[in-house]
């Protein structure tokens, strides 16, 4: 069961590298804390899922790298090749000369159609290398032009061409205090389009990960590399093989919930229900929670707190909303680690903030001419706003 990763734009490619590196490092970690046979099964499963093999034995990431300008991809390819342990396929990248200029409309309406065939062909080639395709993992940011606009376009195409395969988008939520001035426009356009074509949106906020680096890890001068590595660690702890109740690892397809919130792994502790309470809501009501336990004592961990009905919306029984996946094999040298993937109201506040700011800017018509230049009209903006207000309202209603 293999996953094909599509890395888009600077953010997607920089993160993608760290993810594959983390997955590889973990699977080759000597301290598995489990039996040799278990370790080998783990390694084989991880390998099949994320890497294909070349003649000389160097694993090749099952990935397609896409960017509209060459600097980042060149860097990413050489970083992987330099490590000597794994690499990207020689012909797995698609690159152009001029970027998307932070313009969602340019990424979606110009680059998308122009390069549709080439990009989809690359993806097709990667899919053909898989014995059986589990789905797609698309890594992109919301704030820029390529990751966001072209990412939305590619996801739509994947929906059309591979409607039976799962598509999960890893989305990077930009810093609140601005990385890109038009980030709120780009974000609402991205989210509204992805809602219609993606199966799951896994969200990481730069602000949240930054805080982890600062407060939990005490890093003094935080670089994007630090941030990306924390992210990769979290993703690794979710994606590496586990056993679920129903058999071997597979994704759950949740028809209602689309936002999944990833929490930091609580390393070194057995699982605790650490819900961060949003001050405006009495409870952070969930539709679904997934706990992943790795390492020592997984079978004796007490998970009762997760089944408290107060955590879930009134029309769900905890038994239907809560799942656990476990493996005795330790992750990345942590004797015990846990990850929580949650579909809950936690993202309502950030989403509401972005929609509010974008709405304010839209009311003044600032920057709109940059989008209409490439075919995204005011009606498209209004459609996006409408859809996202509905999402916000739906999530808010969970609390009642």
């Amino acid at each position, binding site marked *: 069961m293999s996953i094909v990763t599509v890395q888009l734009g600077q953010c997607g490619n920089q993160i993608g590298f760290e993810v594959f590196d983390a997955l590889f490092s973990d699977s080759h970690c000597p301290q598995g804390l489990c039996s040799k046979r278990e370790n080998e099964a783990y390694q084989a499963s991880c390998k099949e899922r994320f890497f294909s093999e070349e003649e000389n034995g160097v694993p090749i990431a099952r990935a397609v790298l896409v960017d509209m300008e060459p*600097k980042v991809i060149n860097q990413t390819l050489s970083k992987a090749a330099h490590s000597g342990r794994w690499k990207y396929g020689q012909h797995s990248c698609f690159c152009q000369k001029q970027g998307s*200029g932070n*313009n969602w409309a340019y990424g979606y309406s110009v680059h998308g159609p122009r390069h549709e065939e080439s990009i989809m062909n690359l993806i097709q080639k990667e899919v053909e290398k898989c014995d059986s395709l589990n789905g797609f993992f698309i890594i992109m940011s919301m704030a820029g032009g390529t990751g966001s606009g072209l990412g939305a376009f590619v996801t739509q195409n994947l929906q059309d061409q591979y409607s039976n395969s799962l598509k999960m988008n890893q989305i990077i939520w930009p810093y609140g205090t601005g*990385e890109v*001035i038009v980030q709120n426009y780009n974000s609402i356009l991205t989210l509204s389009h992805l809602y219609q074509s993606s199966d799951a949106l896994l969200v990481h906020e730069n602000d949240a990960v930054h805080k982890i680096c600062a407060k939990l890890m005490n890093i003094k001068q935080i*670089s*994007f590399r630090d941030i990306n590595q924390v992210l990769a660690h979290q993703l690794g702890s979710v994606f590496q093989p586990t056993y679920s109740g129903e058999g071997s690892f597979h994704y759950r397809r949740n028809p209602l919930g689309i936002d999944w919130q990833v929490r930091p792994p609580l390393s070194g502790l057995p699982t605790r229900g650490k819900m961060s309470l949003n001050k405006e809501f009495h409870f952070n009501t969930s539709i679904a929670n997934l706990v992943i336990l790795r390492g020592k004592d997984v079978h004796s961990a007490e998970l009762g707190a997760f089944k408290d009905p107060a955590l879930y919306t009134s029309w769900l029984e905890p038994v239907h909303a809560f799942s656990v996946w476990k493996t005795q094999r330790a992750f990345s040298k942590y004797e015990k680690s846990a990850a929580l993937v949650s579909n809950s109201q936690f993202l309502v506040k950030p989403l509401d903030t972005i929609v509010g700011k974008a709405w304010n800017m839209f*009311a003044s018509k600032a920057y709109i001419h*940059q989008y209409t230049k490439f075919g995204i009209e005011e009606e498209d903006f209004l459609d996006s706003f409408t859809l996202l207000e509905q999402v916000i309202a739906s999530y808010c209603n969970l609390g009642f």
Partner: protein
Amino acid sequence: MTQSVVIQVGQCGNQIGCCFWDLALREHAAVNQKAIYDEAISSFFRNVDTRVVGDGGSISKGKICSLKARAVLIDMEEGVVNEILQGPLRDVFDSKQLITDISGSGNNWAVGHKVFGSLYQEQILEKLRKSAEHCDCLQCFFIIHSMGGGTGSGLGTFLLKVLEDEFPEVYRFVTSIYPSGEDDVITSPYNSMLAMKELNEHADCVLPIDNQSLFDIISKIDLMVNSGKLGTAIKPKSLVTSSAGAFKKRQEKPFDAMNNIVANLLLNLTSSARFEGSLNMDLNEISMNLVPFPQLHYLVSSLTPLYTLADVNIPSRRLDQMFSDAFSKDHQLIRADPKHSLYLACALMVRGNVQISDLRRNIERLKPSLRFVSWNQEGWKTSLCSVPPVGHSHSLLALANNTCVKPTFIELRERFTRLYRKRAHLHHYLQIEGMEESCFTEALSSLSALIQEYNQLDATKSMPAEELPRLSVAV
């Protein structure tokens, strides 16, 4: 990777351009130690095998043979261009890239725009097309000129329309030197006003600069060095002084040092597009993020640090000082007061060993003292380029779209009106074919409309930020 073409027009434009090419070569020489022709260097230079006659000499990869600037040099007098072609940079320019005349424009915009414009239109087009053909993917034209004279101002702005028609998809970035109050060219208000209309209508982005600010910056550096303050010493290889000797000759040739500042501006503006970094910023992103409405495309620039300190391991406090300086009036390239005006958008382009946390910390720190327009409260665009400028460990270029440019335009309008009211020197312009009084009145209303847009934005400064009602939806 994309390429850019520099078009230097008039005496001022060519002098600045010359400094720019000198610094660009130094920068690439410092970064590209193996002398391989790579994508970064190809953004401004062609690699040519000079043994091949004619046009076939371009080499796209491999070792550097001979670098040719992607430039077009235009001047209606021969003096400056000839000096360049006899100077140390003579091999960098292709002799076919020049357009010169002998008589000059007589500080008359109409001569530059109407007379020389029509006379040289075909030639200009031909040179531009050639330059474009040599580019794999042309992204941007950088036009360097002054506003107060005749050639840079008139012919330089004539070019803009030509570029817009012929290369509509290529960005037009204009670096304009605005006349200072003590300008000795009497007709500079006319020339500047007429040029402003063209900038309003045909430029994508304008970086206004005034000589007085540049002079003040140079004076400040002189003061720091001459006062012998501990720890402050200009590194001889720093790009502020383009050659070791130039520093001593400062008093005699202030323009060289001033031009170097503008050249540095252009280098830093394009660094994140040419070199790698953890958060890249391409040239098309500048326009996208900093121009909220098509007319409002005037950006105030400030560069720090302008001097290096003796110790290289600069602790965090000094790094933060760099950010503070970028918002100080002393480091701006145009006289303006952004802190007391309204920010529409601001870009911070950092080079060197600076990480995202340094950037965030400083934005948080400086934000409270800056006023941003209500619909763009977090109007920051940031970029991190790993390659520092030569001789520094890090640097910062701040580009602000701020209503503080308004006073410059108002002053320009006043100086224009004073002259125009008396119809002084008007006949020099009106006698040129194609010039009528309406050219002046149209230019005046174009500028007034621009000032009015800034006024409207300023009026929102004191209003509380409205919470606009959101869409209500049925669930």
